[in-house]
């Protein structure tokens, strides 16, 4: 289906009048902002895969919630994910067990148990479709209720505020945890805060892109920004703006061409990464 530009515009403005599209827009922008802010420190601390691991945990928790027939699955999913995040991130730089192995074990373990539970207990007639939706997001972003949008707005504002307040502490702990601890920064508290916030953002982002693609939202903006900028502040700001722009663009494209929201956003992130790599190379040359 090919459209001319004016046709596209008409099509879009028609869609933008629907409240479910507006809600999706708001949530998309907020989730993209939060995940990019966190992404910078997660990538630099070599925790790129935490998003993957935690989202699989959230997937497992969702399956349990479904089996238990809970009215609202979010509280349980949030609680379980936060606990796992604290356990995984607590050790920081001084980990005794290899962080990546622990992460992989938790990640695939939760995925397997979740799918197993859904298979055994689910009463749904379209199990494959349900699983696919949870893993890839697909349409769930368009079916958000008003309550969920408000919750998302509240959490996103809280995350952003915490990030701004603790910005310097987060920098210090990311750059050199031992120095920060030795000179009196409360690194334990900062690590705990990062773990909790990471879990919250992951659970929020699951609605948007699904379990399997969350890592993209966390990693791509940060890595793209690092190609071009050389100070922590510039990288953080650039990642936040880039992430919001890419997510917004991805959502518009997915409406225009009827593609899945999550994978379209990730594709735009990927394209932006290509552009930023090129820009970085030109700048250095």
């Amino acid at each position, binding site marked *: 289906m090919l459209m001319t530009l004016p046709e596209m515009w008409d099509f879009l403005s028609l869609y933008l009048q629907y409240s479910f599209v507006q809600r999706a827009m708001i949530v998309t922008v907020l989730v993209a902002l939060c995940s990019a802010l966190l992404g910078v420190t997660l990538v630099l601390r070599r925790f790129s895969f935490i998003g993957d691991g935690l989202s699989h945990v959230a997937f497992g928790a969702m399956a349990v919630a479904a089996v238990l027939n809970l009215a609202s699955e979010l509280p349980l999913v949030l609680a379980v994910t936060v606990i796992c995040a604290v356990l995984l991130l607590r050790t920081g730089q001084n980990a005794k067990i290899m962080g990546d192995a622990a992460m992989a074990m938790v990640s695939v373990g939760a995925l397997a148990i979740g799918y197993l539970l859904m298979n055994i207990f689910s009463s749904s007639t379209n199990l494959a479709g349900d699983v696919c939706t949870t893993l890839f997001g697909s349409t769930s972003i368009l079916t958000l209720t008003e309550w969920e949008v408000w919750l998302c707005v509240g959490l996103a504002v809280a995350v952003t505020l915490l990030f701004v*307040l603790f910005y310097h502490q987060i920098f210090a702990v990311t750059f050199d945890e031992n120095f920060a601890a*030795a*000179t009196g920064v409360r690194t334990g508290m900062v690590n705990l805060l990062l773990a909790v916030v990471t879990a919250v953002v992951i659970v929020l982002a699951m609605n948007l892109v699904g379990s399997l693609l969350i890592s993209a939202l966390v990693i791509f903006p940060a890595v793209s920004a690092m190609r071009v900028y050389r100070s*922590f502040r510039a990288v953080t700001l650039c990642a936040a703006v880039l992430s919001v722009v890419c997510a917004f663009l991805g959502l518009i494209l997915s409406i225009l061409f009827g593609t899945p929201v999550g994978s379209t956003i990730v594709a735009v992130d990927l394209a932006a990464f290509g552009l930023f790599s090129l820009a970085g190379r030109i700048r250095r040359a």
Partner: protein
Amino acid sequence: MAQLVCEELTLGYDRPILTGLSFEVNAGDYLFILGENGAGKSTLMKTVLGLIPPLAGKITRGEGLSAGKIGYLPQQTRAQRDFPASVREVVQSGCLGRRRGLRAFYSAGEKARAAQAMERMGITPLADRCYRELSGGQQQRVLLARALCAADSMLLCDEPVTGLDPAATEELYHVMDELNRRDGMTVVMISHDPAAALRYASHILYLGEPVYYGTREGFLATGAGQIYSGRGNRPC
């Protein structure tokens, strides 16, 4: 005046690496900690800094040497080598340990302290450069400036010349010596470099068999001191 007193320390993570270690550091000392790989040098430093608890024994910090008053020059990690941060950001982060309460921005006092530390290390012109693009010697000066932001009276350095070329090594020793003599900063340095220890140290802590703690002159009289100074017969 004793700034740091360690009595009968037992060090290690789970199993003890070192037992019965006692020494003290006085204001204005220049203490070198020597020893083979695995002798427990870095573990000792982490224990003194309070990053890991001692398995036994007591560490007493003197007046005004609470957390936030010891400057620390750690070994560089691999992650730092490609970390996007400006020199100013790294140096200013040294002020955080003294801060009480939460603020999103650095105060004028903190900025002034960081500027002063950069001036002292001669890196003011590099303030807006990217840390990862500097030479090894310049990076150490940045980390030293950061340590100065945290420290008033004592600097702990963990093998600071590792990976530096001879000129940068010489320069770093010179800077440390100047901080010690001119500014009266107490320096505790872990080192693999016996020549530097014999040249700069006022005191030496040798973690070997037997453990030695005392003045540099006293160390020269011990067996290990003879070997380190090249006067004794090196075991082959």
